[in-house]
């Protein structure tokens, strides 16, 4: 029982079904680990242990009465960007230090309906703006593989909690790589689905045309399990799209069955590789691991084809124009009047707005609001914002052209492995870390990161797979078949190996 947290989601489900352990025992196991070890990681902002215990007890009773929901009684946790009724929802910001959400995000409702047990709310970069989880008002998160390193961001708490063995899976969100990059830094698999696949209702907005929720776990199958209840059209989000509803877990199992004993289960799969993704700035060890993984994909039957995509520098510039512009608009709602932080003793209404915002937001959030306000101001709107929107269309076209010759596109997830805490990079340098992931958000495509090895210092390296619209099943199946023949996803962090 001391290693329950090392089991996959599938093994947890089987264990619950076969009565090897109860949900109450499983939940207690994770709570015990969080209580003993999270002081080293700081992955949780809010614990909901008592509610979780009650839900686990109820789940066991429902299972005893014949409830067959597969995820019934399986623990998880939510990134603190998702509104949870009656529970503190901070978005990593002082601005929302006292915000008890009056409603649930749609994905929270759906995961609750699936019978999962939420253990709490996970740390994140403030308003999802960051790539290292150091901008959180609630303190930096430490990487469970090496506590002196960052876990990535903005979903750093989600990644660290899964990698530490505090939860088997976690929700996360991705505006420019915020699921994939922390998954890469923490040795996990994480998927950002097609824009519109999952409702954004109740997910606190950063850049509405780019934000998308997704799932993180140790394997593609873990991600598939959590993603399943999250997808679907939602009348409360006009940008969620009515589309087919795949059964991801079944699709992954079908892919394995179809492969049978074939030593080349990925025969026929064309993996596009763009030279633009292997340029200066890419760490040598990361490049070696990614190229070795591509060789493994070839050994499994896939064919590597060369494709061209937009120059990543242009993609980066487009993103860092559009995302702050949308953020400056979205974050105008935080004014100290209806909810959230209000400054002490405001002298007048303008002072209330101004001081509440400057005291409630951290420096990176204010920097992005200022950048966005600048780009949207009269005189610069066309030169910056409209220009970036036009380039965005060209980026989409380049992806469409690339997919004419391949089924998925592979790249490193990030140029480096996890860097050290407190490196204090200037913004322009920090933004370069997002160079491989942001194009996916601008195009609205699905993409995942999967672990493909460790650096000589023992830090994880990730490979990104980008798919065509709505083809999350293909992405997950591809990674799943790879993971059936490799063991990168079975490596555990230092903290995960600790027993309590």
């Amino acid at each position, binding site marked *: 029982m001391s290693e329950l947290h090392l089991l996959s989601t599938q093994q947890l489900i089987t264990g619950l079904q076969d009565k090897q352990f109860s949900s109450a025992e499983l939940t207690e196991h994770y709570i015990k680990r969080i209580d003993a070890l999270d002081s080293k990681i700081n992955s949780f902002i809010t614990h909901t242990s008592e509610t979780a215990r009650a839900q686990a007890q109820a789940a066991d009773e429902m299972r005893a009465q014949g409830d067959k929901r597969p995820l019934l009684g399986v623990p998880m946790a939510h990134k603190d960007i998702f509104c949870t009724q009656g529970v503190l929802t901070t978005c990593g910001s002082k601005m929302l230090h006292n915000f008890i959400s009056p409603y649930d995000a749609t994905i929270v409702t759906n995961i609750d309906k699936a019978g999962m047990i939420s253990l709490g709310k996970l740390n994140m970069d403030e308003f999802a703006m960051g790539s290292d989880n150091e901008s959180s008002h609630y303190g930096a998160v430490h990487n469970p593989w090496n506590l002196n390193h960052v876990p990535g961001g903005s979903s750093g708490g989600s990644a660290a909690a899964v990698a530490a063995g505090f939860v088997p899976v976690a929700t996360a969100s991705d505006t420019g790589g915020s699921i994939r990059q922390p998954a890469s830094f923490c040795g996990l698999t994480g998927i950002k689905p097609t824009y519109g696949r999952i409702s954004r209702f109740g997910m606190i907005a950063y850049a509405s045309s780019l934000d998308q929720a997704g799932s993180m776990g140790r394997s593609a199958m873990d991600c598939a399990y959590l993603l399943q209840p999250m997808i679907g059209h939602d*009348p409360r989000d006009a940008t969620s799209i009515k589309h087919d509803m795949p059964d991801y877990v079944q699709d992954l199992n079908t892919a394995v069955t179809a492969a049978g004993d074939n030593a080349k289960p990925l025969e026929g799969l064309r993996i596009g590789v763009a030279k633009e993704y292997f340029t200066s700035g890419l760490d040598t060890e990361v490049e070696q691991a990614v190229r070795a993984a591509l060789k493994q994909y070839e050994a499994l039957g896939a064919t590597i084809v060369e494709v061209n995509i937009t120059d990543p520098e242009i993609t980066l510039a487009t993103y860092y124009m559009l995302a702050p512009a949308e953020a400056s608009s979205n974050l105008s709602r935080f*004014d100290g009047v209806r909810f959230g932080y209000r400054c002490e003793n405001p002298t007048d209404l303008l002072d209330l707005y101004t001081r509440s915002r400057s005291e409630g937001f951290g420096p990176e959030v204010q920097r992005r609001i200022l950048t966005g306000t600048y780009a949207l101001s009269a005189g610069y709107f066309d030169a910056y914002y409209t*220009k970036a929107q036009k380039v*965005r269309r*060209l980026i989409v076209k380049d992806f469409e052209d690339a997919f004419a010759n391949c089924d998925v596109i592979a790249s490193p997830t990030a140029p480096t492995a996890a860097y050290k805490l407190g490196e204090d990079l200037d913004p*322009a340098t920090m933004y370069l870390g997002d160079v491989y992931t942001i194009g996916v958000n601008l195009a609205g495509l699905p993409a995942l990161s999967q672990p493909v090895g460790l650096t000589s210092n023992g830090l994880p390296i990730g490979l990104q797979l980008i798919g065509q619209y709505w083809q999350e099943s293909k992405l997950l199946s591809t990674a799943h078949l790879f993971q059936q023949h490799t063991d990168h996803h079975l490596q555990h962090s230092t903290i995960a190996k600790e027993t309590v």
Partner: protein
Amino acid sequence: MSQPTPATENTVSRQEILEVARLARLGVDEDTASSYADDITKVLKLMQTLGNVDTTDIKPLSNIHEVCQDLRADVAKHDINRERNQSMAPAVEAGLYLVPQVIE
């Protein structure tokens, strides 16, 4: 707004930051404004690459799916719980949000 004038192309001045901060309702002091001006100048230098992209006859793209938004029927519901929603407000009286006096 008064039109801020850049000190030089792609360089953001402290004065511009102060003006933009006023528009964004952010209280930024002079020292912080200088720091933000340096940071945002570096970010805008990243944007210079966009000038090299030919976007003649290209339409701006704001919605990736470019479909009509699937709007709900305009039906009045009575499921808003004012008391619960206002329970987290900094200052409320008789169902109204309180702010500092605006009119003498």
